[in-house]
């Protein structure tokens, strides 16, 4: 049959269910794609033999009632996978082989899928361009000089290049939504607590959430349904009944109230981003939604707040990498303290070190009130902005990013200009809300741009429904030429 790998996950599942293709044939097709896409530098580790074994097992005894029957899936290398190396894009975990499986990946495997490989990402998920990985830059399939976004850059790139039918990433300040926007794909950051954080290499624990990255909204609903759910091993996991997001997907959004926050129109935003936002508003309005102007007055303080909270949490989470129990250990160092210092200096990259130093400083004696406590107070104000607005609206529509994918090296010399990429995505993490980035169009260079839908806590179904209706009426098609193979 024709190349199946450019289809959506949902279509592929249908083809497997109707026996047009076996799981083994499907897995082989992805292996072939991956082997001819080395230029994109997407994979840190591949698990082809193991995947082909699992595919064979599935074909011998298929169970088509599962959500992900016989699906090979590559995942971000931040999810611990039992007996498969998990690096978090860092030299300090270059030799780490977990003896356990993250809850989210276990959930995916329990629904019939299996691991195809581990995807490159920014080191410890700290980055917006996948340029901080110890394993090198990932290339965006949209263009050979472009970053794929970050930190889930390997995930977005692999998906857009047909190297996996769907994938998962993690989002601490935009790490799923921004790369989705840069590659013309769909990415969802769920409500804080919906997906278990157990077994995910921690960055900033009050912000981190795992979520799906897919080609379509329907695929996103399928993946979210498979990966989410209560987990007693995560003390912040929400204990609620599992939802059937894909079965309940509806494209009728008549009467829904969509908030348009004026603070998301920022200075120097390219004209195309603004035009795309207008197009998005028009589509939703034509579908019967009501547009309502809202104000989220503390939006401009979200990034500065984030750059206190996230590094503070990171500095304590990353204190565990000391070269004693696992991971890299420096050969230098005469005594214990020097061994720690050399190990951490050689094991971490520049961006991670910067953030550990910021975090250590803002938590240090005499500065805690001025920085960390201040940030927690502003975080309260940011959350309150959303709480107040959501009393009168169902969802919020904004651009996902202030620009399309930029060139490799363009922003590496100025950390603050890199951080500004996440200006539209960070507020959502601070408030713990769900948000979806969906492809909406291209800029004048032909590079994809996304729009973001923000929902109330646990209102994933509603933003998926709005996204579903939008997708059917938007007419966006991701045209990527396979220049790399």
């Amino acid at each position, binding site marked *: 049959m024709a190349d199946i790998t450019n289809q959506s996950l949902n279509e592929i599942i249908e083809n497997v269910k109707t026996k047009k293709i076996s799981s083994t044939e499907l897995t082989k097709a992805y292996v072939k794609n991956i082997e001819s896409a080395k230029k994109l530098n997407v994979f840190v580790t591949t698990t082809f033999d193991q995947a082909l074994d699992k595919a064979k097992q599935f074909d011998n005894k298929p169970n088509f009632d599962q959500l992900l029957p016989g699906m090979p899936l590559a995942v971000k290398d931040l999810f611990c996978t039992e007996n498969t190396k998990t690096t978090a894009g860092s030299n300090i975990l270059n030799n780490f082989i977990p003896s356990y499986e993250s809850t989210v990946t276990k959930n995916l495997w329990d629904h019939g899928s299996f691991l195809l490989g581990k995807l490159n990402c920014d080191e410890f998920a700290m980055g917006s361009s996948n340029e901080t990985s110890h394993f090198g830059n990932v290339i965006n399939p949209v263009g050979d000089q472009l970053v794929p976004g970050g930190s889930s850059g390997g995930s977005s790139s692999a998906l857009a290049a047909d190297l996996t039918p769907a994938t998962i990433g993690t989002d601490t300040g935009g790490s799923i939504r921004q790369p989705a926007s840069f590659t013309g794909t769909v990415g969802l950051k769920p409500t804080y607590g919906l997906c278990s954080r157990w077994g995910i290499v921690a960055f900033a624990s009050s912000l981190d959430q795992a979520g799906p990255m897919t080609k379509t909204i329907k695929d996103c609903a399928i993946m979210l349904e498979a990966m989410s759910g209560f987990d007693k091993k995560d003390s912040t996991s929400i204990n609620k009944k599992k939802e059937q997001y894909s079965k309940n997907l509806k494209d009728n959004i008549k009467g829904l109230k969509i908030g348009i926050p004026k603070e998301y129109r920022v200075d120097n935003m390219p004209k195309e981003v603004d035009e795309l936002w207008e197009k998005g508003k028009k589509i939703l309005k034509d579908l019967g939604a009501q547009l309502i102007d809202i104000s989220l007055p503390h939006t401009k303080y979200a990034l*500065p707040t984030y750059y206190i909270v996230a590094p503070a949490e990171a500095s304590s989470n990353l204190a565990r990498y000391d070269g004693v129990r696992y991971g890299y250990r420096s050969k230098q160092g005469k005594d214990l303290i020097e061994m720690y210092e050399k190990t951490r200096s050689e094991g971490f990259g520049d961006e991670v070190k910067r953030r550990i*130093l910021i975090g250590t400083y803002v938590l240090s004696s005499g500065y805690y009130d001025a920085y960390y406590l201040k940030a927690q107070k502003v975080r309260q104000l940011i959350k309150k902005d959303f709480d107040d607005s959501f009393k009168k609206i169902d969802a919020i529509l904004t651009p996902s990013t202030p620009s399309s994918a930029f060139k490799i090296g363009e922003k590496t010399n100025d950390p603050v200009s890199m951080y500004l990429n996440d200006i539209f995505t960070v507020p959502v993490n601070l408030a713990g809300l769900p948000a979806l980035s969906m492809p909406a169009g291209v800029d004048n260079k032909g590079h994809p741009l996304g729009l973001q839908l923000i929902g109330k806590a646990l209102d994933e179904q509603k933003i998926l429904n709005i996204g579903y209706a939008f997708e059917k009426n938007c007419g966006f098609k991701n045209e990527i030429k396979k220049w790399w193979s």
Partner: protein
Amino acid sequence: MSLDKEKIKHVAKLARISVDEAKVESLTKDLNSIFKFIEQLNELNTDKVEPLTSILNQSLRSRKDEISDGKIREKILKNSPKENEEFFVVPKVVE
């Protein structure tokens, strides 16, 4: 406020990260530009605002303090950079 090189070396010491003398200059520049950005927060009066300590409307669950696994010493030691059958090994601490 601005961070000078000595302050940065002190923070690096607290964070147990050795910093190359050659890199201190550029690190100082980067951190100062980040702190300048962060300090926009000082524009806001937050005297009457409660700090947000949990994003969920639920308190952390507690569980019974019981062993839920065990007998996995070998598994745990497998990733150790240096081990001696039953222990993690570190450079000599006591003379």
